């Protein structure tokens, strides 16, 4: 039954290759590269060209990989540089033992100092920054949703910390699966929507890049399935997708410890195989948008949801506070809403996990009573992050590097938060310095749906007149109870905080930190976001235009159980050297409260005597 493959019959035809068959050419090279010196003429030009292309792509890509060595011989791993000024991605479980300072070797044989920037412990991602150059070779983050099972790919890294000359190791393979869900231990190191590959991923590869055949960064390698086979590659490695990383990158640059998101609801598979809400928190945004127990989840963030894993895959790629679309079904009627995702952990919880032993590569089983905890598959082994190999090294933090490290509770490196907060604020101040305008601010004009308004904002109170009547906020009392005017979600309180930011600045506003770059519900686009806490108002977001620095909007929640008051600031006009918005669109929940046109604005400086 064997049809013997003759060798001689191949020769006359070997140059005839159609394009469709190019698929196999990449494949051939793996073996074609050996022992051909004397027989090069037998290999078609197309094959040789393709091989050269592949060599070129790998040579370029591996320049961006880094070998990470933790201070004091606390192991290490791999990483990849993603910007010319040295920002680089790696795994949380690689930098965890390293702390806030590490050494990174690159393909050029140089060793660079690097500092910790941001952490995503739940997603096992860390952002670090290499120092000393502004022209680092860097990789480009690809759209990982385009990656399909069967695509060629290659991993670059430092398996077993082999590379004493820092030249990384390249392993080649195919994508074995996409949109894989790998459960966490507890709530950390969860791999959602990840890429599975048979390219060899070994201890030391953690944090290193997974590239497409074209040399684009499609993921960050971090764990594998091992079980009884010992902790070396068995052809089943997992990479965090580049799309997930893109969502978190703007947050990671803020120097914070970033949390993942929850819908505030858990889901389960119904007997008919549909994904339905099994539990929902009444304080969640989803609840306020109408989601209830028993509703079927149809799509989430634009992706169809057919399994619980699919739901978790979507949820896991977004940070806390992200806004996503949700389509749910009740009695054959579909509802389309936008929801803001809340955090998986409380601040303290996350901090405790990062500091505690749970942050080490997990060994325990997921807890079934955890909200959103995955149902353990029948006897399915739990893939584990790769352990860091040990390397002996001792070094002290250089003084100039130490200046870039600023520890603060709740932050990976507060230095970067402060830097960014100041950057955003000085960019905003170019459009007007309000610091001396601490007197009364008077705005008056018309509402788009008819009638006139007048608002006077002062240090102690806000007084206003709307067509429906007067409204007032006393700033000396708890602000979270003052939602005037009715139906606005607290417009006057928001405007009070707006004036406070512009006059006092982020340093004196109250507590204020740089959130990162994020989308908003109230308007399209990605914004630089400062988040402030003042009085009892826990969270007010100020949205700045990423290009111009203009304050484009704000979103304030009076308290956890009510919808936000969202203001869009538009039509800025010069007013005595200050740019003042002359159109304000105010939303409360899904309702438009009002669009107001400012006809007259008086932004007074402080006066000795009270008006």
């Amino acid at each position, binding site marked *: 039954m064997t049809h013997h493959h003759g060798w001689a019959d191949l020769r006359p035809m070997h140059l005839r290759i159609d*394009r469709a068959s190019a698929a196999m050419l990449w494949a051939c090279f793996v073996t074609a590269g050996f022992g051909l010196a004397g027989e090069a003429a037998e*290999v078609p030009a197309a*094959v040789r060209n393709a091989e050269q292309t592949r060599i070129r792509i790998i040579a370029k890509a591996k320049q961006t990989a880094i070998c990470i060595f933790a201070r004091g011989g606390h192991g290490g791993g791999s990483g990849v540089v993603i910007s010319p000024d040295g920002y680089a991605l790696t795994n949380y479980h690689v930098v965890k033992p390293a702390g806030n300072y590490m050494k990174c070797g690159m393909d050029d044989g140089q060793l660079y100092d690097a500092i910790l920037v941001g952490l995503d412990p739940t997603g096992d991602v860390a952002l670090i920054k290499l120092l000393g150059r502004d022209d680092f070779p860097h990789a480009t983050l690809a759209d990982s949703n385009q990656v*399909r099972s*069967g695509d060629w790919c290659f991993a670059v890294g430092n398996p077993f910390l082999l590379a004493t000359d820092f030249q990384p190791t390249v392993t080649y393979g195919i994508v074995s*699966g996409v949109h894989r869900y790998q459960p966490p231990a507890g709530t950390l190191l969860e791999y959602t929507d990840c890429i599975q590959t048979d390219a060899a991923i070994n201890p030391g590869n953690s944090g290193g890049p997974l590239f497409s*055949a074209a040399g684009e960064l499609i993921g960050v390698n971090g764990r594998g399935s091992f079980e009884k086979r010992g902790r070396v590659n068995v052809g089943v490695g997992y990479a965090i997708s580049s799309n997930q990383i893109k969502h978190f990158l703007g947050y990671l640059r803020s120097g914070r410890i970033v949390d993942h998101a929850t819908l505030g609801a858990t889901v389960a598979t119904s007997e008919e195989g549909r994904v339905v809400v099994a539990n929902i928190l009444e304080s969640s945004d989803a609840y306020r948008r109408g989601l209830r127990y028993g509703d079927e989840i149809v799509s989430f963030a634009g992706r169809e949801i057919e*399994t619980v*894993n699919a739901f978790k895959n979507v949820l896991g790629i977004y940070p806390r506070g992200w806004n996503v679309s949700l389509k749910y079904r009740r009695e054959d009627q579909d509802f389309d809403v936008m929801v803001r995702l809340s955090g998986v952990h409380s601040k303290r919880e996350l901090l405790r996990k990062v500091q505690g032993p749970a942050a080490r590569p997990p060994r325990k089983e997921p807890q079934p009573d955890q909200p959103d905890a995955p149902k353990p598959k029948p006897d399915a082994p739990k893939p584990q992050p790769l352990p860091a190999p040990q390397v002996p090294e001792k070094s002290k933090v250089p003084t100039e590097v130490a200046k870039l490290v600023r520890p603060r509770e709740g932050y990976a490196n507060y230095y970067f938060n402060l830097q960014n907060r100041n950057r955003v604020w000085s960019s905003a101040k170019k459009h007007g310095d309000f610091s001396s305008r601490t007197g009364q601010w008077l705005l008056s004009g018309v509402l788009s749906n008819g009638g006139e308004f007048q608002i006077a904002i002062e240090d102690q109170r806000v007084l206003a007149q709307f067509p429906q009547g007067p409204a007032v906020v006393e700033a000396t009392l708890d602000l979270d109870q003052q939602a005037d005017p009715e139906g606005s979600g607290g417009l006057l309180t928001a405007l009070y905080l707006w004036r406070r930011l512009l006059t006092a600045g982020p340093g004196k506003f109250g507590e204020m930190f740089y959130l990162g770059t994020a989308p908003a519900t109230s308007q399209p686009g990605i914004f630089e976001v400062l988040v402030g806490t003042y009085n009892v108002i826990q969270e007010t977001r100020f949205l700045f235009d990423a290009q111009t620095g203009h304050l484009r909007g704000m979103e304030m929640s009076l308290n956890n159980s009510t919808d936000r008051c969202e203001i869009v600031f538009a039509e800025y006009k010069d007013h005595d050297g200050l740019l003042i918005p002359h159109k304000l669109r105010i939303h409360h929940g899904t309702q438009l409260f009002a669009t107001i046109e400012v006809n007259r604005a008086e932004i007074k400086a402080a006066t000795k005597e009270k008006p």
Partner: protein
Amino acid sequence: MSPHLSVAHELRGVVRSLTVAVVSSLLASICFPLQPLRGVETSYSRTIANVQPKMVKIYGAGGIRGLEAYQSGLLISANGHVLTVWSYVLDTEDVSVVLNDGRKFQGQLVGADPRLGIAILKVDLNEVPHFERRPPDELEPGDRILAFSNLYGVATGNEPTSVLHGTIAARTQLSARRGAFNTTYKGPVYILDAMTNNPGAAGGALTDRRGNLVGLLGKELRNTETETWLNYAIPVALLADTIDDLIAGRTPAQTVDINRKKPVQPLNTELLGIVLVPDVLDKTPAFVDSVRKQSAAAAVNLRPDDLILFANERMAATCKQLAEELSFIDRIDPVTLTIQRGQDLLDITLQLP
């Protein structure tokens, strides 16, 4: 085989795909050097997308330490016949088969061949995508392969199985490694250079680079001396006839003689001196717990831990099946039991004195 030859194999396949050689070669010479090889053109993704609907995930008995309660399988007929490995996972009435699209079915055991280590399940389906049972070509060392399986149970529901790539490293007899590997199958196998035979991968598909079925991924085998794991598949060409027979119900084990009558004085295990393990499951494997001294079983040296598979070539792999089959045999007649002892399959004939 030299690496060069494997390239030649690839090109041979490539060349075969041409229908009009002249036109194509013209096209190739025009557009090929100008077209950079990008991910889209070089991917296996289309082949894989065609194969995935033929793959199934199987869940059954197991779940205790070291024994996964899942394995892989593949559709082998349009009527929902599933080829998989014969293993403890099937030792339950409740075997579920999950299709690529997430639909879940109860799998009925149609038949099994313990010598080949294969089993055929049937799910209630018509006109499903399925593999051909006879490969267009046997593969040679150096030929490229893809391996589809639900290793580590990574995929659930409608998630596609995992795919690994590699080449055929060798074709050899598994019995050549006898002693090192604990296996009853001793026939020819493809040895693979990829990590194909992980937990849960058994019953998965080995295909050529076009997605044609060429082999069945075997059970995990660890070399007892070196602690290394073997990556291998049984060539499907060797299984094809048996698969045909199993599906058609033609194996002796499956043949039902409607005229078969129970004798007045039938055999039973007690008469033979066989004590089986307690029958606590719906499909308790017919393991010998002990053998009574000076019995017919003792006379042929049946031992504790022997697993009875057949009685007179009819399937008798569970305690209940064995009791049923023995009830058709008269006490005065001999009975041939096929047993598994360690890695060997043995036929022993018992006769009451």
